[in-house]
Every structure is written in structure tokens, then in C-alpha cells.
């Protein structure tokens, strides 16, 4: 069983717990493909999706996961809530707790929001992405997808390419894959490689060609257009030329390398359409697996009882 009350990040979770989540997700994925996708595991439980950032796939994925497990789901987005009236995060979540929610799933533009929440309330907190800190369920679904395709994670070479500085997905992937015995490399423009990232245990590259050599898995990150205005790279054209994944570059990796992307993609910029739609791409499977992994997390955090 998972000993923790909350899922804030993969930095502070150990390999057996990750293993348990991934194993549980295998059973959950089976449910997703049943004709009637409903089990009574979380009947009578209330789950609140508290989203301070626009999100389609993560919010929907958590909502489906909760509904397949028969929980009641409340969705709160910042534009429609009292947030716009100036209520603090602390007061908002205390209100939710007073109404009796079992789990709060929080997406927030600022790092540490989920940590704060976990300190303030008794309900279980799941981090659905906080600033540039962590996005643990994305990391888990990436590991699940790779394990499903490759059989195991140990010894694989994982390469994460793009804006590492601002990426919570990169951080969760680094922690998760390293803990499971994979080798992780990060690659991006020098302006987007955060200070001290090598101390995590990841290797660091500025040359995509070098980074891709012998890669088993390539995770491309979305480049945000506003980073150009902030002076972090000169132009999308140059970014795509130096760090975009195309057919020729993909051939530098192992022949059976997987191509992944947390979405939404900028086709033609960080990833060519041809590569995104290629047989090596598992981008759509990541989405399906996301539901299964989130079901596993919900189940293990509150539904597992004394099992």
C-alpha cells in the first residue's frame, strides 16, 4: 500500500511505490477497455478538481479516472470561482474542505501550491502540475507507457528535449525514471537548462544530435512562444532548426526508440508532424494511459482501504 497521504511529486516517492502504482495501473487499464467502464471502488467519495490554470487533457483525464471509479467529481476553475473575487488559496481550500471533499486535485501556475495545500488541509492532495515544480501523474504515465512498450525501465536511455527550465514534466520524469534505474539525459538551449540540473543525476546536453545517440525514449517538450519574448531564444525558426525532432534526427536514436510528448504539441516546431504521427510515436497512448495511471493513484491514495 502507499504510505503517503498525498501525491505532490516524484522527488519524494520511492521505487517500490512507483512500481505499485504502475502495477495497479495495468489492472485499471483493463477497466478502461471494458464495455461498461465503471467499478464501485470510490462510491460515495468526493473529488475536487481545483484548476487555477487552463487545462483540457489533465483535468478531463482526472475527471474520467474519478468517474470510472464511481466517485463524485466537482470541477472548479479559477475564472469561475471566488478566486476572481480575490479569495486566497488558503481560504478557498478551507471552504472546500468544510464542504467535505476527500481529495483535492490541484493545478496551479505557481510552484509549491500543492505542498502548501497539503499542509493546510486534512484531505488528500494530488498535484496536477504546479508551476515549474512537478507534474507527478504525467511522470507516472510516461513511465507506464515506456514500461508497457519496453517491458522494463532499468537501463533504458531516456532523453528529454526542450525547455527544461520551465518544465514540471521534465522534473517529474527525471526523478521517476532515475529512481526506476533508467539513465536520463536532458537537452535544450543553454538559456533553458536550469542551474545545477546535473546534480539530479541527469546528463546534460546542448546538442540534440549528441543527446539522441542510442536513445531508447525521446520525450519532447512543448516550447512556449512567450519564452522568445523573454529573450530565451532568438526565433522559433532557429529553435526548430537546433532542437526540433525530425525524421533525420530520429534516426540517430535506436531503431525502436519511442517518441513521446506531454502535449499539446507545436507541430513543425519542437516535433515534425511526420515524427509525431510515425509508428514510433506513442503520444496518443500516453493520453489513454494517463487515465489508467490516475485511476491507480486515486485508488491507492484513498480507495485501497486496508488491502
Amino acid at each position, binding site marked *: 500500500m502507499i504510505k503517503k497521504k498525498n501525491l505532490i511529486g516524484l522527488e519524494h516517492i520511492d521505487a517500490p511505490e512507483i512500481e505499485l502504482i504502475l502495477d495497479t495501473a495495468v489492472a485499471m487499464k483493463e477497466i478502461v477497455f471494458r464495455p461498461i467502464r465503471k467499478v464501485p471502488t470510490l462510491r460515495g467519495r468526493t473529488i475536487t478538481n481545483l484548476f487555477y490554470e487552463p487545462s483540457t487533457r489533465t483535468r478531463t483525464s482526472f475527471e474520467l479516472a474519478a468517474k470510472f471509479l464511481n466517485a463524485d467529481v466537482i470541477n472548479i476553475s479559477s475564472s469561475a470561482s471566488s478566486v476572481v473575487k480575490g479569495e*486566497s*488559496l488558503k481560504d478557498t481550500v478551507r471552504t472546500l474542505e468544510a464542504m467535505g471533499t476527500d481529495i483535492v486535485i490541484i493545478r496551479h501556475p*505557481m510552484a*509549491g501550491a500543492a505542498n*502548501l495545500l497539503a499542509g493546510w488541509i486534512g484531505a488528500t492532495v494530488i498535484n496536477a502540475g504546479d508551476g*515549474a515544480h512537478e507534474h507527478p501523474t504525467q511522470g507516472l504515465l510516461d513511465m507506464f507507457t515506456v514500461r508497457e512498450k519496453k517491458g522494463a525501465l532499468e537501463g533504458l536511455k531516456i532523453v528529454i528535449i526542450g525547455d527544461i527550465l520551465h518544465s514540471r514534466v521534465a*522534473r517529474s520524469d527525471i526523478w521517476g525514471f532515475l529512481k526506476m534505474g533508467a539513465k536520463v539525459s536532458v537537452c535544450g538551449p543553454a538559456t533553458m537548462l*536550469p*542551474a*545545477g540540473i546535473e546534480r539530479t543525476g541527469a546528463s546534460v546536453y546542448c546538442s540534440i544530435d549528441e543527446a539522441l545517440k542510442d536513445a531508447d525514449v525521446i520525450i519532447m517538450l512543448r516550447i512556449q512562444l512567450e519564452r522568445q519574448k523573454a529573450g530565451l531564444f532568438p526565433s522559433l525558426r532557429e529553435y526548430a532548426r537546433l532542437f526540433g525532432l525530425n525524421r533525420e534526427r530520429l534516426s540517430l536514436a535506436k531503431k525502436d526508440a519511442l517518441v513521446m510528448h506531454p502535449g499539446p504539441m507545436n507541430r513543425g516546431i519542437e516535433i515534425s508532424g511526420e515524427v509525431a504521427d510515425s509508428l514510433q510515436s506513442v503520444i496518443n497512448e500516453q493520453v489513454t494511459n494517463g487515465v489508467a495511471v490516475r485511476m491507480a493513484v486515486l485508488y491507492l491514495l484513498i480507495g485501497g482501504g486496508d488491502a
Partner: protein
Amino acid sequence: MKLLIKGGTLISPDQKEIFSTDVLIADGKVAVFGNNLEMDRAFIIDAGGKLVLPGLIDLHAHLREPGFEDSETIATGTMAAAKGGFTSLACMPNTNPVADNSSVISFILNKARQGGKVNVFPIGAITAGSRGEELAEMAGLKEAGAVAFSDDGRCISNAAVMYRAMQYATMINMPVIAHCEDTRLSAQGAMHEGYYSTLLGLKGIPAAAEEVMVTRDIILAGETGCRLHIAHVSTEGSVQLIRQAKARGLRVTAEATPHHFTLTDREVTGYNTSTKVNPPLRTLEDVNAVRQGLRDGTIDVIATDHAPHAQEKKEVEYENAPFGISGLETAVGLVWTELVNTGILSPLEAVEKMTANPARILGISKGILAKGADADLTIIDPARTEKVDPARFVSKGRNTPFAGRMLAGVPVMTIVGGKIVFEYAG
């Protein structure tokens, strides 16, 4: 009212000596030193086993009044000072309105006279509104009682403005206190840029943001002959730059805060907003360099940068929280625990950095214990230890990263102008 302090060990920065003596205080002045003094009709204070110091001076505090009275007032801030063993403090001008004109200086001095527990020396703004554009009326500020100029909390990004400010301050023989921060390098930063900012996903403030401005201001001080005091030195590079400037004979002084000689950026892990401070908590190498700078005299002053905030302002997302640590009530304990008891500073050196040195920089006749001097004294018990409990702070700001820490060295009595303004009650 006469006070007779008996049996204490006196630390005298002006005589560079430590010796056992009784002290008689009469009419608000130090009257007599001597052993086994007896005096009828005097209130006897037993200082056996305690250290008797000239009243401590905090060169860098934020009292928040006028304008931010929910975070602190002159009354509560000076009460916190008294409890922390300070008999005088210099308050920064980033109030609302900014202390950039003589009427705000007069307001602060009046409030301090009416409800202040300790002596308050206001610092005037360098530029109008601390906007970094046009000079404030510095001569008028000085006449009203300002003891130095600073735009603390903000850095004057325009080098030409800083250059002229230093020329003008030098003309009227006043020091300039520089908050060194290149705000484009630090923009939106919430903590030191390094491994921990990467782990936490918080925007970093690189050491270079401080050091490029320390460099600039040292160059400008060399050009103008200005007495430049660098506030809250936090990086190894800054310490080196100041050391070099002093070796060249420039009139540059510097201060460090207890949090910068004690804590590292690792403390931010967990997103405790009480660790959010500007300049940010740096690396272990930086902390050690600051300690070395204190030891070798590169850093002249220990100042608190007391920056109280109302609790609800700090109970927010880390990025949204304001910068600042409530520091008056933990300073003595941190100096004793981290610097004196570790042998980095002798008791005399530590006291100099909190008395004679800040007094000299500000040009105020405080910080000495001599016959006829103002009877501002601090008595501390170096043997007593106490756990930091923010709930017991008298400052309105309970924003401390030191909660729960055991500190040795407790101020037990604070005397201002011959009056006991604080007495330790356990």
C-alpha cells in the same frame, strides 16, 4: 532615578576591553564605573554572570509606519527592538508615503518620541518616491533628522542617478546605503538561482544580480569619494569585491544579516514563505564567505533587515509572498550561537559590529559606554538558551525561518536613556 548595575562583565568597544565593573546610571547618563559601588536610593540590577554592553544599534530595520501598519508600527517595532536588546535602530524609508521629504521624517521622529521604546534614526530616500529617477531633497531630509540615504528594497538601476546621488550625498557629508540588485537579472525571482531553485521550480535570483551592482556602486564610490555602505551582503563574490575596495582605501562599509550568515537556500525546500527574503538565502559557500567577511573585518556591521509582514500576506503561494524576515527578536541569539560560540567572532568583535561600527557609519553619538554617554545599555545572558517561538514575538511580524531553533545568548534587560524599557520575564 538612578540605576546601579552590579556584578556584570562590561564589553567596551571604545576601550577595546572586557572587564568586570559596576555601572551607575544617573539622569539618563552613564555616571560612574567602579567595583563594589554602593548607592542609596538607586535601583539595583544584579548582572552577575551577564554581559553589559553599550545599547545595540540596528542599522537596517523596516518599521512599516506610515502606510503598512498591519505589518508593524513604530510602537510595535521598537518594542520588538527593545526585546531583542536594541536601544537604537535606523529605519528604512520604504513606507507609504516614502520618506523622501522632511515631513515624513518629522512624522517618524514624532511617533518615535511619543510611542517608541528605543531611539529611532530615520533614513531618507535617495530618490523621489524611491523611483530611482530624480533625487530626493537630501539636504532637507538631513536637516529634518535623517542619518543616511537609501532606496532600500529597490535598486537604483540608472547608474547616472546613483552617480549624482553619491556626489550630492558627499557634498552634505552623508552616507549612501546601497541595495545592490540588478532587477533585470533578478526579475520575478523568488529565491537564489541554483540547484534548489531548479528542484523547486522557482525562478532564481542569480548571485550576479547582486554582484554587478556591488561592482558598479564601488566604482561610483571611488569616483565620487562617497561613503558607501552596502546593505545585506549575501554572496561570496560581493564579499570579495568589498574586500578589494577596502584594500584600495575606498570609504566602503558593509553589513550582513543573521539569516545570511546562518541559512542556505536549501532551507526553501518545503516552500516555507518565511524563508523568502531579498537578497535570497544563498549557498553554503556564500554563507561561509559572509562569515569569513565578518571575521576579517570586510563586513563591518551586523544588521537585521527586520522586515515584518502580516501573517496573511505570507500565507500564500511562495511566488506571491512578499520578501522579508522579522529579525529583531532573534538577532542576538543568532550572533551568539552562530558567530561567538563558534569562535568566528570574539564577544568584543560581535559587539563592535552591533554598536560602535553602525554608530560610526551613521554618525550618531551612540554605541559607546563611557562616562557621560547616553545611558543606553543592553544586558545579555550568554549562558541562557531559548527556543524561538514566533507566537511570543512582540513584533507584528512572525515571519521567521528560525521557529523552533534553540539559540544561546538572550537579551535580559534593555535600558534606553537610563530607563528600563525591557526586562526578561522567562
